[in-house]
């Protein structure tokens, strides 16, 4: 019964999305005469959000009670699983994750229908209509090819479990985080399409879109950061980024969203970069759709291949064609009539932001090309794999200039400025970079890219605080603080990346129990090996005593786990975290003569990568709070102004 309720709500929500598409489109056509029809669009969007939310709640319910007559529960859950993993199982699969996607999208659509009042009503109608169109495609996908509420003819006796690699608290929340990001970008996409339809690409449009882009960007940042940490400690390979197609699929929307965020700021503040912002709005959502397509269709080989299904790939490709093809066609036809907006000088805040946008877009193109290249060559039956030797140096060509401008740009004034005015700051940044280069070159043995990274990171960290110079700290807008924190976070993460790459030490050793080995400043003793058992796995657990520089030993217990439903082996690495880095230990198989394989890494300052990521996201949150508070204040001000006028007239 619960499942049927959920399904019914989903059908109704789909019908409302269709209604929203229709009334919105008709209202745009009719213009001022369409007020009666237009009045239907917002309520339809709100109700659609409520119904989709209800459907998702029903899915959570059947997972919580492990209703094994529902196919999705039977194939993805298990009565013995802890409740939190039962619930996360609801979205840890294709059907459930698509329902989550649709639900968040519908809720977001309902929210803009409720609160967004500053755009011209006609643009708003076009936006909601576009939003209904996007949502409708996903509803069709769910209802026609991946119904999450499908019943089994005969209830299963027991569920088939969840991929044990996915039974991890970080991972339970990793995909939804990315989805929130993707959905936020779908809203930005709808805004862009709406503005393109009515040709009203105004600063108001940018301010309306910006909170959604910011929100999406925060979630994407967190999602990528968490995903990177997950790959780091779960896969047991010691690396934190593998340029895997699925990782790239999450990085590309982030790059596009970062560019969009900055160009929307220019449009909101200075009424410039109109067509470019629209284009980025379309591209950012395209990248999330392309990413989803690459992950789901399985046309690229990846460590994340658990979600593969070519038939669904075809469906997503079809949706892509409709949405993105349609939007790009509209762009080609309309963008020529969107005037370019206000002009500005090269040495200005806008100039720096444009440079940043071009570099980000170039980086995006590099990543996209590298990700799709195997697809291209496979069409000619050549199998290649594109990895770090391509992405790192080629990406750096664009990232390094971008980081340099990131240090300088926020110091420049809008519209027109001269570098002479900020010559002291420029000299400081230049001196810091030079000092960093000399310092780390003296240490020696560091490759060029990590060396540049280390030197830049130090200078960037200082430069990110320079915009606060001369401001009263307590009166500085929250959004400025957001920018400072986010830029500082980039510097912190960059330092972590460069340090990991420059100073990591690795040791692969076969040791008997009681024997010791060295990695970096650590002395590692294998104290014992014992079998342990968990709820659905058994493992060999090593007991390792690790002592830093002769200090008090810490005990690490890495495991090699065997899951039995379904059978799978995973390595559970163990980490010893210090302020200045992490020791990373993995235990392997017995070599046969009583010796055990140990893989050890000492990674100085590696944790800064993820702390940096969190800081960047925190900066985004601050900026979002600043913008939303600003909007509310401005709305209150406008209302008071209108009231006063009304009083004056009366």
């Amino acid at each position, binding site marked *: 019964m619960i499942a049927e309720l959920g399904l019914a709500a989903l059908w109704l929500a789909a019908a409302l999305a269709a209604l929203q598409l229709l009334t919105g489109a008709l209202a745009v056509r009719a213009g001022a005469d369409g007020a009666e029809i237009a009045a239907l669009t917002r309520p339809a969007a709100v109700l659609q959000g409520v119904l989709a939310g209800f459907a998702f709640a029903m899915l959570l319910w059947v997972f919580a009670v492990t209703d094994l007559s529902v196919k999705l529960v039977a194939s993805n859950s298990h009565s013995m699983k802890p409740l939190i993993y039962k619930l996360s199982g609801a979205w840890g699969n294709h059907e459930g994750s698509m329902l989550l996607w649709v639900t968040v999208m519908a809720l977001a659509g309902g929210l803009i229908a409720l609160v967004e009042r500053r755009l011209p009503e006609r643009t708003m109608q076009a936006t909601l209509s576009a939003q209904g169109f996007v949502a409708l495609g996903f509803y069709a996908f769910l209802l026609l090819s991946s119904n999450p509420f499908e019943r089994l003819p005969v209830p299963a006796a027991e569920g088939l479990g969840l991929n044990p690699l996915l039974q991890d608290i970080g991972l339970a929340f990793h995909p939804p985080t990315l989805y929130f990001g993707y959905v936020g970008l779908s809203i930005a996409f709808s805004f862009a399409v709406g503005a393109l339809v009515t040709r009203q690409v105004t600063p108001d449009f940018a301010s309306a879109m910006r909170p959604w882009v910011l929100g999406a960007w925060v979630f994407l940042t967190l999602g990528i950061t968490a995903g990177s940490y997950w790959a780091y400690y779960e896969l047991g390979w010691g690396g934190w980024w593998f340029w895997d197609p699925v990782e790239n699929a999450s990085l590309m929307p982030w790059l596009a969203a970062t560019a969009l965020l900055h160009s929307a700021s220019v449009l909101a503040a200075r009424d410039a970069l109109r067509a470019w912002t629209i284009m980025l709005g379309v*591209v950012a959502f395209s990248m999330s759709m392309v990413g989803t397509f690459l992950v789901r269709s399985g046309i690229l080989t990846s460590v994340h291949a658990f979600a593969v299904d070519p038939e669904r790939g075809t469906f997503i490709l079809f949706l892509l064609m409709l949405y993105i093809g349609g939007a790009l066609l509209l762009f*080609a036809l309309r963008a020529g009539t969107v005037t370019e907006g206000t002009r500005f000088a090269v040495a200005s805040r806008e100039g720096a932001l444009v440079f940043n946008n071009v570099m980000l877009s170039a980086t995006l193109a590099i990543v996209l090309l590298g990700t799709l290249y195997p697809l291209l060559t496979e069409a000619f039956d050549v199998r290649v794999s594109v990895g770090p030797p391509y992405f790192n140096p080629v990406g750096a060509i664009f990232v390094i200039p971008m980081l340099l401008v990131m240090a300088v740009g926020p110091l420049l004034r809008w519209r027109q400025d001269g570098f002479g005015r900020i010559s002291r700051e420029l000299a400081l940044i230049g001196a810091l970079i030079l000092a960093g280069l000399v310092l780390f070159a003296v240490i020696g043995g560091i490759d060029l890219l990590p060396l540049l990274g280390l030197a830049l990171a130090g200078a960037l960290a200082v430069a990110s605080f320079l915009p606060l110079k001369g401001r009263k700290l307590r009166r500085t807008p929250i959004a400025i603080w957001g920018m400072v924190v986010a830029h500082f976070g980039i510097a912190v993460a960059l330092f972590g990346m460069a340090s990991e790459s420059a100073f990591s030490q690795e040791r692969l050793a076969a040791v008997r129990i009681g024997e010791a080995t060295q990695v970096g400043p650590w002395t590692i003793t294998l104290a014992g090996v014992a079998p342990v058992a968990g709820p659905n796995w058994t493992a060999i657990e090593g007991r390792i005593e690790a002592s830093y520089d002769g200090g008090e030993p810490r005990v690490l217990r890495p495991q090699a786990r065997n899951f039995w439903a379904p059978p799978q082996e995973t390595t559970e690495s163990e980490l010893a975290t210090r302020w200045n880095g992490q020791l990373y230990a993995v235990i392997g198989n017995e070599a046969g003569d009583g010796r055990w394989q140990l893989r050890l890494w000492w990674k100085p300052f590696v944790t800064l990568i993820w702390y940096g990521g969190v800081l960047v996201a925190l900066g985004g949150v601050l900026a979002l709070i600043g913008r939303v508070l600003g909007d509310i204040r401005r709305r209150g001000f406008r209302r008071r102004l209108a009231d006063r006028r009304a009083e004056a007239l009366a």
Partner: protein
Amino acid sequence: MSWRLWVPLLLFAGFLGLAGYQLSRPRNDFVESRMIGEKLPFFELRPATSDRPGIASVQFADGKPRLLNIWASWCLPCIAEAPQLERLQESGAEIVGVAIRDRPEDVARFLERHGNPYTAIGLDDLSEVQLGIGSSGVPETFVIDGQGRIVYQHIGDIRAKDVPILVEKLGKLGK
């Protein structure tokens, strides 16, 4: 100026075409062994059950062709394959099993439930033999000639239609 606005759409159309083409192509996930025609690598596996011996590569050079079945008690297609292995055994084939990453008690339970067509079963705890002969999954079945040379590889579970093919391969070697 305006032709530039069409560039994104054209690029996107290119991507669509490429992706659509790739999706429409049949996907071949089977990885053929490069060891076909080669001698078996050296191995010795301890027995997986108390009533059957383990296996060693040297035993294959006694002039008698055999089937080498890579399987595991945890593998669902192996259950589907079990009746076909019985039929192969009835038609006179000698089948030796390599149980991948398995436990003796699970092996015993599986054989009790689904039948035991094997003359010998070895435990391959680390997939060493599996990797050594170029098998990428379970189940797979290899035809080994009387000199211990790998002649033929069957990837995936053996269906009813595959039984005559395997019988014929063995029959050719027998003469």
